[in-house]
């Protein structure tokens, strides 16, 4: 399967740029400070037009669709870059699909240009799932409540949230620069996710959808994000495999490279198998999405589960292959271990997506 030339070019450019930009010292500094947003890299990728990649040309986007975004997500994942590409793309899509163009033109345009970026505050607190039913409340058209720890919320300009308006499910876009919004960044397992809790104390909102339309849009948004994130996870897992392979060839024990031992060979082969299985699921879901096949929602759930598994296992086994050096702060394997955990929690844990998958397959009682 050859990648179309446009995507191959995007991938090559991303690799070239991220290889230089994501040097270990820089990544370590981001990990050391809670709530770190990688503004330097974000400023560069704006220049490349990355925030516009999935947006249609009629909205001044690059028109490379979700596949284009997935290429960037995979390459970001490989280098543990932490950029709000996926949240912004999801928010932009919702704005163009649901909002009154005239009213929201400015918001959409800002997301496409990258001048502003969004976060997805879709997770439930005290749970491993997503906020359906929502925890936040609309009272008199103003938003109240506190979100779960949300990636990029420490500095994002917008948050996509779901809220309960009486009995009605509402999907909202909130501009975060207003006095009724406060952010609480926290020490996190992966500080470079720029994560924070968001508290809303009567915040003004823009309603994107209400009722059943809103709930459908909510799960569509979550699934789109999960699909692109699956590629990010696969990219990370791929790097773990490559790191482990390189180390297995270099490190010697008992008079030979450890890669000669079957215990290590088998481990690396298992990583490879899991990654390729996840990649298959993700490509399948992406193709279904592009063809407008409604089964893409179930396939995206599969991709989410398989990619979460592939990344977590690969991150662990990369550490194991590195031996004691793998459990030090200085070495890079823990960056992936942390990122794999963060990505596995954000957007809901695998346990929830398994239920989602069964529900999409017609086992309605599974949820």
């Amino acid at each position, binding site marked *: 399967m050859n990648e179309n030339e446009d995507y191959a070019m995007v991938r090559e450019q991303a690799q070239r740029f991220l290889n230089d930009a994501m040097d270990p010292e820089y990544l370590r500094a981001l990990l050391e400070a809670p709530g770190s947003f990688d503004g330097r890299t974000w400023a560069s990728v704006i220049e490349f037009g990355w925030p516009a990649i999935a947006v249609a040309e009629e909205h001044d986007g690059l028109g490379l669709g979700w596949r284009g975004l997935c290429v960037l997500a995979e390459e970001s994942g490989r280098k543990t870059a932490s950029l709000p590409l996926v949240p912004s793309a999801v928010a932009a899509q919702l704005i163009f699909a649901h909002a009154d163009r005239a009213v929201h033109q400015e918001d959409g345009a800002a997301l496409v240009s990258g001048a502003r970026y969004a976060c997805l505050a879709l997770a439930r607190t005290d749970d491993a*799932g997503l906020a359906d039913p929502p925890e936040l409340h609309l009272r008199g058209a103003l938003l109240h409540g506190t979100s*779960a720890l949300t990636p990029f919320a420490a500095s994002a300009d917008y948050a996509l949230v779901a809220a309960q308006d009486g009995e009605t499910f509402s999907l909202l876009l909130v501009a975060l620069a207003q006095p009724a919004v406060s952010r609480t960044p926290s020490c996190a397992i992966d500080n470079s996710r720029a994560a924070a809790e968001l508290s809303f104390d009567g915040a003004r909102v823009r309603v994107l959808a209400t009722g059943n339309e809103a709930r459908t849009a909510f799960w569509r948004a979550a699934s789109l994000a999960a699909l692109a994130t699956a590629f990010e996870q696969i990219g990370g897992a791929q790097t773990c495999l490559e790191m482990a392979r390189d180390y297995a060839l270099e490190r010697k024990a008992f008079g030979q490279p450890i890669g000669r031992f079957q*215990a290590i060979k088998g*481990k690396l082969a298992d990583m490879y198998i899991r990654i390729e299985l996840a990649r298959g699921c993700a490509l399948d879901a992406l193709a279904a999405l592009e063809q407008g096949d409604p089964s893409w929602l179930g396939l995206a759930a599969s991709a989410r589960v398989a990619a979460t598994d592939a990344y977590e296992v690969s991150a*662990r086994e990369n550490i194991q292959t590195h031996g004691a050096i*793998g459990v030090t702060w200085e070495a890079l394997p823990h960056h992936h271990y942390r990122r794999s955990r963060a990505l596995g929690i954000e957007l809901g844990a695998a*346990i929830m997506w398994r239920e989602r998958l069964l529900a999409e397959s017609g086992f309605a009682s599974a949820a």
Partner: protein
Amino acid sequence: MNFDIDPADLAFREEVRTFVRENLPPEMAARTLRNYHFLRDDQREWTRILNKKGWSGQNWPQEWGGTGWTPIRQFIFEDECFMAGAPPIDTAGFKMIGPVIMNFGSAALKQEFGPKILNGDVFWGQGFSEPNAGSDLGSLRTTAVRDGDDYVINGQKIWTSYVETAEMIFVLVKTDPEAKQRGISMVLVDKNAPGVTIRPIIDIGECHTLNEVFFDNVRTPVRYLVGEEGKGWTYAKYLLDMERAFSAEWPRNKRYLAQLRALAGCARSNGRRLIDAPGFAARLAQLEIDLQALEWLTLRALYERKGGTTLPVGSLLKVRGSELLQKIGEMQVEALGDHAAYFYADPRDQAVSDVGWPPGPAYAPGIVADYMYRRATTIYGGANEVQRTIIAKTFLEL
């Protein structure tokens, strides 16, 4: 093998439980129960509390000043202490170098160190691994050359746990660089001796528990040679088998699984409990089975050691115990859901002690910190890949 429970052992369990309840300082227990690394000061204080009662040397025979307890009583004691939140006693001193000194050391060494270990006056660092000799310990390069009444030591050790707060180091050295394993000896070195440099290694969880130790013409008296020159490899194998026998960490597995059970039974914000999710429940049940199997494997190892047979089940215990700890940890963080996204490396961090922060159960930050560090368990004490090779060789003659 007969595992009938002796009523006297049940009474013993009650006695231990009462003692721990009355003597373990509550704030120390609260600290330990959070799953973070233990503090040396807590360990020292607890060792001394135990020593006053004559209980610090649980695995030592009475002639060494130990309790002379049967394996089942040691097991009960460790179980009760761990569940109550007592800090662990010093493995390096009580379970590793202590028995080596007592079995193979000179009368003078026994007299010098036995009482100090028992009273928590001397803690130990293990100077085995080197940058190019980890699981493959035989290729170590640190040398000790005899010079009058001293050995002069040169070389580097790495991954030495907790040596920063220890008093002594036991070191594997080459006294005969030509001979391979037969040229290896074990010597004791004062951590503060001139020429010893300790450099911290920050671990995966942002903590300092590991170190590099450099020896630059370090002098240690010849009387600190353990046993005979050239027999260090034999002692090290004895000691590592002891380490592996205890690395099943059955009590830790038990306590962590109890935490997981509690998490699984809590109602979440969506009103449901994890235990009601069939997939989760099935995995939890499997962990219960694994834990029970580990308990019996540990007991079997202890009984067989007592009987004088030396079935080397240490490797089995190491593999099963370490992998079970990791599996429980992985399910714990999964069960914590969004609460597992918060991370605090140090329990003394002001933010962690603020009431209500971070969100979730009070022990959540410790679980997440432990989830990071716990990756080391399948590596230290001889990587599990190497343990499996030993199992294949020893039991299956492969």
